[in-house]
């Protein structure tokens, strides 16, 4: 039950990304997750197997729509075809909410199919906030914006990513999808303290968490979503739950996809952390001891690389 003053929708609990490999297991077994997130573009097709299974899963589970092509920060005009197709899909799915990324994906009519970072300054802020409002007007609902993993910083940036995300969300009156893994990945790649990030985020606007695995290449981390979640990300998740409460949480696994059961076990770990953090005992303990986790410095990441030094498929 959402309070009248609350910006966010009621939490959905613990979910997974809906993946083709798992369709049959999901529909065959008992209900083991609370909800699913779909990649919107995978279902923006005329028909066939994707939409068939989408409808069947939707009949049994709440869904949320997660897009990768909005390109909210691009200086190209908003893609009207994309928005139209997104709205058509939303009418079919009736998602609890719709999200995309705080990024850009191409200019001059080209699509780079990547989530490219934005320079965090006044010009970008005005540009993005204005476009979020246009999208929200078109969709008739608040949008969630997700922080992306990034590998570079622009000289033109004037503020931190969390300051930028907070300002955009407040100006445009949108919600936030906080990707805990992305915060960790970027904190290593850029050498900031992920706790500072969490502290900069307006709690009232946090609608969803993402968790995922990545590849630690020692000099930097690549956000690959093809491995289990590592301990430092679980620790950061613990801190996020402590600050933002029982926020809807899901695991993104996009590659090297394991059996459904394996992801359910990983999701149980998230449930256990949230349960522990949110129990009355935990709150009492926190009151006495406070909490902190080590800021992963570059050197720390190099020493502590617990993930096998992985390579991309080819260089």
């Amino acid at each position, binding site marked *: 039950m959402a309070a009248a003053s609350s910006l966010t929708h009621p939490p959905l609990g613990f979910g997974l990304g809906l993946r083709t490999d798992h369709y049959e297991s999901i529909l065959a077994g008992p209900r083991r997750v609370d909800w699913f997130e779909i990649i919107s573009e995978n279902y923006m097709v005329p028909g*066939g197997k994707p939409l068939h299974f989408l409808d069947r899963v939707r009949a049994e589970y709440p869904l949320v729509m997660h897009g990768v092509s909005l390109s909210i920060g691009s200086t190209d005009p908003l893609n009207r075809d994309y928005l139209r197709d997104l709205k058509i899909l939303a009418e079919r799915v009736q998602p609890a909410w719709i999200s995309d990324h705080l990024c850009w994906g191409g200019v001059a009519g080209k*699509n780079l*199919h990547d989530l490219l970072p934005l320079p965090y300054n006044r*010009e970008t802020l005005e*540009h993005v906030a204005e476009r979020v409002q246009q999208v929200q007007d078109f969709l008739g609902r608040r949008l969630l914006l997700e922080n992306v993993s990034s590998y570079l910083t*622009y000289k033109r940036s004037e503020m931190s990513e969390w300051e930028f995300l907070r300002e955009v969300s407040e100006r445009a009156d949108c919600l936030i999808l906080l990707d805990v893994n992305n915060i960790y990945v970027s904190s290593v790649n850029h050498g900031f303290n992920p706790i500072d990030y969490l502290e900069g985020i307006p709690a009232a606007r946090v609608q969803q968490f993402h968790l995922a695995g990545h590849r630690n290449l020692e000099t930097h981390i690549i956000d690959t979503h093809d491995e289990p979640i590592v301990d430092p990300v679980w620790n950061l998740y613990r801190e996020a739950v402590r600050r933002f409460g029982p926020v809807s949480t899901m695991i993104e696994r996009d590659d090297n996809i394991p059996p459904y059961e394996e992801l359910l076990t990983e999701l149980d770990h998230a449930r256990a952390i949230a349960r522990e953090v949110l129990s009355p005992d935990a709150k009492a303990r926190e009151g006495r001891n406070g909490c902190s986790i080590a800021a992963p410095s570059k050197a720390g990441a190099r020493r502590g690389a617990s993930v096998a030094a992985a390579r*991309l498929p080819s260089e």
Partner: protein
Amino acid sequence: MDTTLNKLQGDFQRYLLTLDGPMAKEVVSDALDAQTRLGIYADAYRLRLLEALQTDFVALRAVLGDDEFDAMGRAYIDAYPSQHYSIRHFGRNLSRFLAETDPYRATPVLAEIARFEWAMTDAFDAQDATVATVADMAAVAPGAWPSLRFGLHPSLQRIELQWNAPPIWKAVDENTDIPEPQQAEYPIGWMLWRNEFKIYFRSLSVDQAWMLDQLLTGATFSEVCEGLTEWIDAQHVAAHAAGLLKQWLEDGLIATIDY
């Protein structure tokens, strides 16, 4: 729109597409230098698109081998950057690219394999439709036959191939020896379609291809029969056409019988 943000995005995109331009001076160098940081994005850009091509062109990759496919894919990425919001559409121009670009155009079977595999991709997620049945056809009153029209399943893809792309695809799919490229004397009509969630394909004789194309343009049964007399004796033509229709109904290719 000409702003610093627009300029910055143009420079970044130019770097990703061409590995060239002034972008590096916009990026902070610290533990990793600007060039390395940009390189992470440039690598990821190509790898993501290559992966999309690998998914959609399995047979082409088997024929070319991994390294050659990789080189070909990178050339295609440079020649045909994505213009669609969805990566689903990225491979749409690959067949054209192979037909017009050295050295691939010297091996025309490659473009045809790409065309065949792309037709499968299009059949896979084409619009759904209920299908008409043989019983529906049997229920048609004899007097209604001449003016009947037939709506074909939206997943139907009609292509012409002069090389043996479909047997090559089949060999790759079944993991058997890939046949040598073979050229037919003239282009052969093929149809691909989806029934339930499976993709089917079949070659067409000249009269079958002609009839199917006529149905696609909305010709009536009597118009079809008249044209088929080019190949079929007039007294057998109606039975011949009805026989083909029955087969296509059983295939799940006919969505509607329209009076």
